[in-house]
C-alpha cells in the first residue's frame, strides 16, 4: 500500500465552533507532506483527530488503511507543538518509557535511546533529569521519542521551533534520513524555507478548509507564485485586506 494517511470528508466541530470542514488529503509512503496554515486554522485539531484524540464529527481518517488506535502505537511517531515530557526523570528514562509504550522492549528502547542521544550530542547527558536540559535539548529528546521504533508515519508539529541553525540542520537531516527509509512525514511549520527544502506535497489550510493541495510545483503554478511563502500570503491575503 502506497498511501499511509487517508483523510476523507473530514469535518470537526468542537462545541459550537466548526474547526474543520470537509477536508480531503492523502500522504504517501516516503514523502514529506507539509501541512500549513495560520494559527487556529485547524492543523493541530486535524492531527489530533487523525490520532483519535478527538472524535471526528464526520468523515474518515485512516493510517495504513485503518483508523488509528493506541494499540497501533508502533505505526506513528508524534512530536506535538506543545512540548511535554516528564521533567523529573532523565532523558534516557523518557526515551525508554515512551519506547516501551510504542512496543519496544526495555533493552531495545535503551539501546536505541542511547544511540539517538549520541547522534544529537546528548550522550553525556543521558542520565540527567530532563529539567536540567535546555529547551532545545529537551526538544531533541522529544524528537527522539517520536522517531523511536522507526514508525511508518512521523507527525512533526513545528519541530524546529526554538532551535538554533545548527540544531535545526541536525534535526532536518534526521527527518530526511527517516523519510529516505520509507517513513511518511506530516510536517507542520511556519518556516516556508523548510517547506521548500523538504516537502514533496503540501496542503494549506485556512479556517478549516483546504485552500491549496498538491505538489510544491503544482501549488506554485496554480496560484501563480514563485515561492510557497507567496502562495501562503496569497491565500491569506483576503484576511489581510479586510484588516
Amino acid at each position, binding site marked *: 500500500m502506497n498511501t499511509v494517511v487517508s483523510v476523507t470528508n473530514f469535518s470537526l466541530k468542537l*462545541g459550537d465552533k466548526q474547526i474543520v470542514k470537509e477536508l480531503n488529503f492523502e500522504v504517501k509512503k516516503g514523502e514529506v507532506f507539509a501541512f500549513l496554515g495560520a494559527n487556529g486554522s485547524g492543523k493541530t485539531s486535524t492531527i489530533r483527530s487523525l490520532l483519535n*484524540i478527538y472524535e471526528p464529527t464526520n468523515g474518515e481518517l485512516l493510517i495504513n488503511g485503518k483508523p488509528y488506535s*493506541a494499540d497501533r502505537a508502533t505505526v*506513528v511517531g508524534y512530536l506535538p507543538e506543545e512540548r*511535554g515530557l516528564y521533567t523529573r526523570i532523565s532523558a534516557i528514562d523518557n526515551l525508554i518509557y*515512551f519506547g516501551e*509504550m510504542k512496543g519496544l522492549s526495555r533493552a531495545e528502547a535503551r539501546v536505541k535511546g542511547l544511540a539517538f542521544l549520541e547522534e544529537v550530542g546528548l550522550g553525556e547527558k543521558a542520565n540527567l533529569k530532563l529539567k536540567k536540559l535546555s529547551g532545545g535539548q529537551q526538544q531533541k529528546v522529544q524528537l527522539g521519542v517520536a522517531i523511536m521504533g522507526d514508525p511508518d508515519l512521523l507527525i512533526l508539529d513545528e519541530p524546529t521551533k526554538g532551535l538554533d541553525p545548527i540544531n535545526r540542520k541536525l534535526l532536518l537531516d534526521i527527518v530526511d534520513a527517516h523519510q529516505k527509509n520509507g517513513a511518511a512525514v506530516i510536517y507542520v511549520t511556519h518556516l516556508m524555507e523548510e517547506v521548500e527544502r523538504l516537502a514533496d506535497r503540501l496542503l494549506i489550510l485556512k479556517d478549516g478548509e483546504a485552500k491549496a493541495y498538491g505538489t510544491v510545483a503544482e501549488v506554485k503554478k496554480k496560484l501563480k507564485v514563485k515561492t510557497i511563502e507567496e502562495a501562503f500570503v496569497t491565500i491569506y491575503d483576503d484576511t489581510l485586506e479586510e484588516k
Partner: protein
Amino acid sequence: MIALPLIIGVVFLLVFISDKASTDRLDSLANEIKNVAIVDESGYVPARVIEAGGQQSRPASDLSELKQEVAEGKLNGLIHYPADLTESKNFEVFVNSTDLSRVQTVQSLADSLLQASLFAPLGSADVIALAQNGASSTLVTYENGKVSPGFNKYIVPGMFALAFYLILFFSIGYILTSISEEKENRSMEMALTYLRPRLLILGKLIGVILVTLTQLAFMGALIAIALLLLTQTDALTLQLPAGIDLAKLVFDPVAIFFGAGFLIAGFMLYAGLMAITAAALPARQANAFSSVFYIAGFAPFYMIQLILTDPTNPVTTFVTFFPLTSPIVSLVRNTVGNMGIAESSLALATMTAFMLLAVWLAVKIFPKGALEYQNALSFKSLFRS
C-alpha cells in the same frame, strides 16, 4: 511515598520522648522542692498532712511576712488556703521562680495537699485511691439473649472506616496531582497518542492503590515496631477503653464484606471524581475545587449522633445514599451495625453505580480536558464530540 508516614512516625516518637522527658523532669523537681510554707485558714488541710509532705505549716498571722520571704528568696514557695475556700474555690500560690516546671511543681503540690486532706477522712489508703481515681468497669452487654461481644465487634469493621480516612487524606490527592502535573508539563498529548485514555486513568488508579497500600503497610510496620519497643521497655501497659480486648475481636463476614465493598467503591468513587476535576479544570482551580471532597468526607461527623442513633431518619438515609457522603456514612453505620443487609446491599449497589459513572465520565472527558491547559471545560463540551 513513605516520606509522609515516616514523618508522622518521627513526630509521634518525638512527642512520646518529650512527654517522658517532661514527666521525668517534674518527678525530679517534686523530689527537690522543699522549703515551701503552707498557711491554711480553711481548716481543710491539717498540719500532719503538710508535714507528711515534707513542708512546713505556718499560722495565718505570718502571711504577709511569708510573702516577703518568698519575694526575697528565703522561701521557695508559699501556699495559702483562704478561709472562704469552699465559696471562692480559689487558693493562692507564691513561687520564687519563673521556671515553668518549678511553678507547675508547686501548684501540683498545692493541689495534691488539698486533695489528700479532703480524702484523708475516708481512712484507708485503698478507699482514698478509689475515691480519687475511680475504678475501671467490665462491660457485659446482651443481644438476642446471649452475651454480646460489646465494643470488640466494632473494631474490625471500624478498621475499614479508618482506612478510608487514611486513603482520603494521604492518597486520593495523588490522582489530582498526577493528572494536573501531566497537564502542566504538557506530556498528556504524548501519552494519549500511545495509550488509550481508559488505560491511562486505570494505570493512575492502580498506581495510587499501590502507593496507598505501601503507605498503610509502612505505617502498620512503624506502629508494630513502636509497640514492640515499648513493651520491651516495660513502659507501656495497654489498657484499652470500653472493655476492648484484642483477643476477643469479632470477625463478622457480612460486616467485613460490606466494609471492604464500601471502602473499595468509595475509594474508586472519590478517585473518579478527582480525575474528573483534574481533567476538567486547570491545575489551580482543580486544587481549590478538590477541597469539596475533603469537606464532604468530614461533613457527616456534624450529624454523627443522628446517624448512630436514628438510622431510619430521612437525613440519615439521604447521607447514606448521597454520593459524596455515602462512603463514610456507610462505613460508620456498618461499623456500629445499624444497617441491615438489604440496606447495605442497596447502598453498596448505589455507590458502585455512582463509582462507575464517575470513572466513565473521567474516561470520557479525560482526552478533552487533558489538552485544555488554560481553560476549564464547559459543561456542554463534556457531552459533545
